[in-house]
């Protein structure tokens, strides 16, 4: 019986070799795939179990990880969570990450390649892996002012430093407190998330950069004006500005605000057309320039580009091959024109910065746990959509808007303010969206701001008379004032 016993032990050996092979396949060959599987909660637990770096604004920690005694080890805590939610996003065990919590994730959790040496040090010292801290460009004062000014109206405010592209304020309203979603009780978190999701005011979307894009209305006239100046027009060039303009090839007509005439006669100047936001003049101007010219200019300002700040910004859109009537509508920011508040802030900042558009960014510095600078974002040029001379002409025209035109509500005592109002038909019968963009001081700008208030803001549908000049301009004024006060200009 010895021979079959020997053979049987060979069979046993083969059986164990098969087991070892299977274990090797699972633990080594197929391991990466299994570890990356979305159903594998281990990856999640491992991440939530590490110390996550904080967010810093103006030297203060606004988001931190606190050590707690549960299976996740750390609790993410948000100070003034709702104020910064548009930038930070949330960090949830149930719904994952959004905002900077998502885009800066590898730095925050310490797994980024830039932190390799720190990880190695931690390994040898037996320390737990720690994430880097992310310092934002936001200015807490401007952020607070913008948020208070918007109140519970639906809208957004974006403020840029026109010389650097730093995003000084980014507020969306209504918003939410990420604390609600950061809890470790998944039932509770789920409930809160569903509440936010079902809220008809959609607090989870970031109106400043994503979610919806808006018809820009008259603030788009800045782009048309820039295209005109480049094509040889001057602020004094005469434009045909009838009380009513027949749209070519249709039976429709276009009129001005409250059906008024723009000037005493049927002609006006480019300067005055911008000052009183004359629709018929800009529609005519657009048709004479041709859509390609306006389109090229808009693209230089950033339209149709998908940019990351590093949050992903929705691309602002333009109509495709519009006919004459559509070109007329698109030249006053209607028809298929769409823009994010950030896009309008970029246009404003470029005019303020002598025609040079700086790339907007939200993260200033990333520091390793040992305070070593891992990433320092320097200002970079995005494009040069205007010459310095044209930018100066347009600035002067925008100062007229605030001094003697539709934007008087943004005027600040003792400071020259440049601005432009916008009141955009939304096409669904509700009150128009109200815009104001501007910068100050006009001759040496330190802040450029774009304000959007949806559907007449606080006045709601009853406020069909609401305009950018009435609803949005005061908000922009308050933000600019706060910035100037900070810089000692006022």
């Amino acid at each position: 019986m010895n021979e079959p016993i020997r053979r049987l032990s060979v069979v046993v050996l083969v059986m164990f070799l098969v087991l070892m092979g299977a274990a090797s396949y699972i633990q080594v060959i197929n391991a990466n795939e299994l570890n990356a599987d979305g159903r594998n909660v281990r990856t999640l637990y491992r991440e939530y179990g590490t110390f996550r770096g904080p967010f810093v604004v103006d030297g203060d920690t606004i988001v931190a990880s606190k050590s707690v005694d549960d299976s996740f080890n750390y609790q993410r805590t948000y100070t003034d969570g709702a104020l910064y939610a548009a930038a930070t996003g949330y960090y949830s065990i149930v719904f994952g990450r959004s905002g900077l919590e998502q885009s800066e994730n590898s730095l925050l959790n310490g797994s980024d390649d830039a932190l390799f040496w720190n990880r190695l040090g931690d390994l040898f010292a037996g320390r737990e892996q720690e994430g880097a801290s992310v310092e934002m460009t936001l200015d807490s004062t401007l952020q607070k002012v913008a948020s208070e000014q918007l109140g519970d109206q639906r809208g957004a405010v974006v403020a840029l430093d026109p010389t650097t592209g730093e995003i000084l304020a980014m507020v969306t309203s209504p918003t939410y407190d990420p604390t609600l979603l950061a809890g470790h009780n998944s039932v509770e978190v789920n409930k809160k998330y569903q509440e936010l999701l079902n809220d008809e005011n959609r607090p989870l979307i970031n109106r400043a950069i994503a979610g919806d894009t808006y018809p820009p209305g008259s603030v788009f006239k800045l782009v048309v004006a820039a295209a005109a100046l480049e094509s040889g027009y001057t602020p004094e060039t005469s434009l045909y500005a009838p009380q009513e303009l027949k749209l070519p090839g249709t039976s429709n007509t276009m009129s001005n605000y409250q059906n008024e005439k723009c000037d005493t006669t049927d002609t006006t100047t480019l300067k005055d057309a911008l000052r009183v936001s004359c629709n018929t003049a800009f529609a005519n101007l657009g048709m004479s320039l041709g859509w390609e010219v306006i389109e090229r200019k808009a693209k230089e300002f950033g339209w149709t580009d998908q940019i990351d700040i590093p949050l992903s910004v929705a691309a602002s859109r333009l109509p495709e091959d519009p006919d004459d009537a559509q070109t007329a509508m698109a030249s006053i920011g209607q028809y298929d024109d769409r823009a994010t508040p950030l896009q309008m802030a970029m246009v404003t900042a470029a005019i303020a910065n002598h025609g040079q558009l700086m790339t907007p960014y939200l993260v200033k510095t990333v520091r390793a746990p040992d305070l070593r600078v891992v990433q320092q974002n320097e200002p970079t040029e995005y494009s040069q959509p205007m010459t310095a001379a044209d930018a100066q002409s347009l600035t002067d025209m925008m100062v007229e808007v605030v001094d003697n035109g539709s934007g008087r509500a943004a005027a600040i005592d003792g400071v020259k303010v440049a601005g432009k109002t916008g009141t955009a038909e939304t096409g669904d019968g509700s009150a128009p969206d109200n815009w104001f963009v501007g910068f100050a001081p006009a001759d040496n700008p330190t802040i450029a701001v774009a304000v959007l208030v949806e559907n007449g803001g606080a006045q709601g549908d009853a406020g069909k008379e609401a305009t950018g000049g009435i609803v949005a301009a005061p908000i922009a004024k308050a933000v600019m004032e706060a910035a100037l006060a900070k810089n000692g200009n006022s």
Partner: protein
Amino acid sequence: MATVAEIRVPTGRRAEIALLAIAVMIAVLARGLVDYHADFLELDTLGLYAAGAIVLAGVAHMVVRRYAPSADTVLLPAVFALNGIGLAMIRRIDFAYAERGRETSFGQIQLGWAVLGLAVMIVVLLVVRDHRVLRRYTYTAGVLGLIGLLLPLVPGLGTEINGARIWISLFGRSVQPGEFAKIALVIFFAGYLVTNRDTLALAGPKFLGMRFPRPRDMGPLVLVWLASMLVQIYERDLGTSLLFFGIFLSMLYVATERLSWVVVGLGMFVAGAAFAGTVFAHVHSRYEAWLHALDPAVYSSGTSEQLVRGLFGMASGGLLGTGLGEGRPDLVPYAESDFIVASLGEELGLTGLMAVLTLYVILVQRSMRTAIGVRDGFGKLLAAGLGFSLALQVFIVVGGVTRVIPLTGLTTPFLAYGGSSMLANWIIVGLILRVSDQARRPALEVV
């Protein structure tokens, strides 16, 4: 004048002391690491544990030295090492559960079973002074084995856990009678086959170049096949079914030296299993969970969730493991019992799992060596059968967790939480030690 004198030959008992010392060290260090990572390290308690382990190892060694002086010297240390690793892992899982608010004391209970298991092994060595005595109880063992195997089917007595009906409820405790039936049936097969091997080895018709047994001798094979099919379908456990049939087939092959028996038997089993898989929904879903474990539809239906979670755990362990106390074995259901192999794979890595598997290989190969060494046919079949039963059980459990075969409800010998399995496997060790004492005892020489 002729006298009979015993020649003293080295038995390797000193080597056993050294190996036992290593095994005890592994057990104590593993427990120390577990306690350290759980912030629970008390040197007094650990010292007590170490002292206890040393005493138990010493007692085991002395008993073997006294009552089975020539027995194999590697078996005991290998079993001690496996037990030590299992106890540390189960304790570690207790800590993991506690962290999630679930108070368990699997580690304490298992420690009790391990000590009791060792005691039972000593009793086996004391009572069974010669393994050939067991041959007298061939048919008694056969009846007991069959009863044990089918006991869970008795209404009111059998209990179903995780879809498998392989437990019975006894004095408020769950007992797996199959674990003990396994031993009884190996004794029965050994006794029966050693008597009938000549008949069963008789040549029958030749087919496809292979000589097959005579149809009239197929009775016993068909009977065991029917029993194992009954187990698979009504106890809903492919593992137990495969284990019994495999043990019988391997012993039949050893007894008759005829490969044709294996061919016929395997063919019958595969046909039966495939039939059960197409006809019975619960068997079918087990096959589905095995073949398409990662398929989202199968996963979300819950049938493969445990298996896949085990795979995730092993994958996260990688080559070197997370380290004892550093992983999340508690994320796999039944991490302390059915899936202890996945827990070990996660925290000790592929390296640790290979080491554990190697310990089993050593255990089984020493049993096979014993079977070759012992002179009587019954002893050969007993040792080979017991050794192969260990090997096959490990293959079925680990193979189930690593997706080599469908997942079943068997326990990993010496590692997994569970009293029945612990006691039964210690009895097996006692029996193999007993046979190996015969196998290695120096022949009496005439001077």
